[in-house]
């Protein structure tokens, strides 16, 4: 049992007390190198081994001091074990951080009261006592205070209103379309709960995008209203920039979790627009267009920053809208649109189209196209049991697709075809990409064609989308198809030129 006359225990106790109570951690840093208790114990054990008998002289003093010195078991153990043993299980630090301590409610309340007291001290309070006023009235004659002004005879100097001048100079400001969200401003609600969040607004130009906008919003506002408020704040604080950046509609935007550098974490979905702000405790968020638009914007901005995308950007013009002729602007827009569709191509989209089976029968299906897959899922198969075999869901890898194109153009219905190689070995599943294809010799290059019918716009969109994906992915099936296509084309031309 430890006693107060045991130096080792006392030293350890003092050391541990310093370490555990000092939130800054400086004590631990300072005392890390010299553990007095431990060095004392080591010296003691050394002396015991070297000279078992009592020694007089210079070392005798030290020896004489250590009459009551008892080492705790395990101190002579190796350092790794020692480190383990030295940690007391009774002392637990908070998990969040080594030197972080949660403040109690009382602390926070006391701080608030202190602030209030300081504020009150700055405010001068004057009490109005009616009896004193009566006395004042009787005593004072107030000749200096109350002077009658001869307002009729005062000559009015010609003056110009500064406000009128400023108003003239200022260009007319269009009415802010996000103005209905202005009421969610948190700064105007001292009694209500508010949240202050640093928001990075991605659609802004680079110099503004890198710095967050400090938004103080009412805690009871919904995320949708918060988004509106952020856009309102942007248009209000940066009127010139926001005129160039067309913000569009509130529904186009999502609030994403972001780190302190402003990079949105796209692994998480955007915050639910119907939730209240007070449910979230984020210090930083990023306002961005919803997924599809985000990728588009990001790629566009990268392209325009490095001047790779568009030759027009290279022109040293400050105001692009004014200096660029309309024709160039048109070509720029077209180029941008083409670029947009290319960038968007690998992103999953589903279309409702009709799958044509056996040349005649049309079955409504959902055609899902992403960068990796083509999915054909049937919808509403009425009477399937009676006349037709029900169409099964067909999924195949994009790498098995060889070709896609519009096959017939009727007035309001277009037919398009997707050709894929059913024998293509999917590298992920190591099997044929479709489940129902019968076995055939793997060396043969067979193509299975699915025919769809839909609106002209959707047909063109699907064909463009698949073409763009095929351009990006150079699969073996596609290469094979192109080779064969080239050969047949050549032979056809040769036959035409040199008929035998």
């Amino acid at each position, binding site marked *: 049992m430890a006693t107060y006359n045991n130096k080792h225990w006392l030293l350890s106790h003092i050391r541990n007390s310093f370490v555990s109570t000092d939130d800054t951690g400086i004590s631990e840093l300072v005392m890390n190198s010299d553990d007095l208790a431990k060095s004392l114990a080591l010296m003691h054990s050394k002396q015991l081994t070297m000279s078992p008998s009592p020694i007089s002289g210079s070392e005798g003093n030290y020896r004489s001091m250590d009459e009551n010195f008892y080492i705790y078991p395990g101190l002579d153990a190796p350092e790794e074990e020692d480190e383990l043993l030295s940690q007391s299980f009774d002392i637990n630090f908070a998990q969040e951080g080594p030197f972080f301590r949660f403040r109690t409610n009382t602390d926070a309340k006391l701080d608030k009261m202190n602030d209030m007291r300081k504020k009150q001290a700055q405010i001068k309070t004057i009490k109005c006592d009616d009896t004193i*006023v009566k006395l004042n*009235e009787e005593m004072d004659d107030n000749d200096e205070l109350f002077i009658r002004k001869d307002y009729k005879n005062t000559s009015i100097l010609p003056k110009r209103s500064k406000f009128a*001048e400023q108003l003239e100079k*200022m260009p007319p400001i269009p009415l802010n379309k996000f103005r209905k969200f202005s009421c969610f401003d948190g700064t105007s*609600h001292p009694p209500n709960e508010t949240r202050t969040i640093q928001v990075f607004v991605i659609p802004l130009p680079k110099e503004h995008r890198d710095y967050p906008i400090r938004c103080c919003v009412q805690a009871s506002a919904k995320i949708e209203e918060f988004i509106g408020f952020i856009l309102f704040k942007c248009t209000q604080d940066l009127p010139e920039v926001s005129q160039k950046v067309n913000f569009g509609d509130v529904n186009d935007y999502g609030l994403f979790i972001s780190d302190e550098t402003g990079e949105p974490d796209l692994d998480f979905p955007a915050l639910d627009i119907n939730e209240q702000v007070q449910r979230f405790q984020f210090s930083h968020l990023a306002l961005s267009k919803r997924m599809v638009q985000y990728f588009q914007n990001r790629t566009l901005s990268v392209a325009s920053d490095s001047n790779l995308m568009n030759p027009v950007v290279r022109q040293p013009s400050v105001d692009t809208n004014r200096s660029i002729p309309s024709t160039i602007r048109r070509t720029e827009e077209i180029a941008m649109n083409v670029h947009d569709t290319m960038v968007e191509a690998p992103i999953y989209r589903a279309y409702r189209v009709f799958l044509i089976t056996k040349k005649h029968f049309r079955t409504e299906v959902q055609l899902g196209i992403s960068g990796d897959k083509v999915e054909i899922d049937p919808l509403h198969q009425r009477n399937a049991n009676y006349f037709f075999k029900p169409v099964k869901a067909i999924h195949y890898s994009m790498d098995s697709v060889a070709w896609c194109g519009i096959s017939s153009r009727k007035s309001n219905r277009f037919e398009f075809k997707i050709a894929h190689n059913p024998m293509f070995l999917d590298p992920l599943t190591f099997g044929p990409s479709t489940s129902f294809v019968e076995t055939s010799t793997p060396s043969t290059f067979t193509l299975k064609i699915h025919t769809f019918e839909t609106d002209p716009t959707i047909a063109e969109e699907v064909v463009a989308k698949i073409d763009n994906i095929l351009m990006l992915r150079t699969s073996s099936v596609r290469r094979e198809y192109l080779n064969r296509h080239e050969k047949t084309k050549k032979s056809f031309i040769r036959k035409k030129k040199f008929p035998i």
Partner: protein
Amino acid sequence: MNTSQMSMNEPILATGGYDHTIKIWSPHSATSVKTLQHSDSQVNALAVKNFLAAGGFQSIRLYDLNSSTNPIINFEGVSKNVTAVGFQEDGRFMYTGSEDCRVRIWDLNCHQPVCKRMFDCLTPVNSVCLHPNQIEVAISTSSGSIYIWDIKSDNNEQLLPEMNSSLNCIDISSNGKYLAAISNKGSAYIWDLYNEGKDQLTKIIPKLKFLAQTRYGLKCKFSPDSTLFVTTGGDGTARVYRTDDDFQLYREIKIDKFWIWDVVFSSDSKYLFAASSDGTARLWKIETKTIEREYLGHSKALTAIAFRDEFVKA
């Protein structure tokens, strides 16, 4: 523009209402410069000179626009709503009117402002305005009576133009020719002002009574050049009349669904700032009846507005 950029030489627009804050705006750019805290009470009345004065429930507060967002002086001792505040032309004294039936004159020249004069009415005070001679005060009350009170000599005169109605606002034209008041029933009263001698109380002679607002009448103001007279009300309109044309209707400004609680003219009398219950203040060009600016940021109804212009030599 932020607080550091705000100087005393800039025009200022102040708005206040039910959300317990007062916002200071840069009037030409419609940006909020500062938000002042008006805790525990709505804002009933605002006035701006060297300081900003705000009247609320049991409180009169003075704010220094260049210091913190909290008031610098808090006047205590008023038991009810303070409904009117205003400054003497040079900011030497401040006058306030409240529902405890009293009009008080506060000396601001001293280190510690004191109440120098007090005037007792029989009923709660709704509105107070200072005569251009800077020595007489016109008071309208909730019982429909009007008082003219000489602060220096303490002489006063009472008038009861209409029974069973409340006179919500009173104003005197800057040329000292007209006195006007509006009742809660929407009637506007115009009096001619006539001064017999230097130390005599101004006489008021009834001139005109007309239905200015179809519903609840709230405010009436003369323009700085005394050529226009505006009334506002619960029907969402602000009606501008010409004083030189026997108070014929000149322009009508209208917003839907909401009340226009308070108005103030720009110093060139061409524009009108209007505070309405949708929490928005607007700048209207009177001639074209168009909205030039919108001051957005309040979350509740606006009930008070004040404007201070600066002048440059022509």
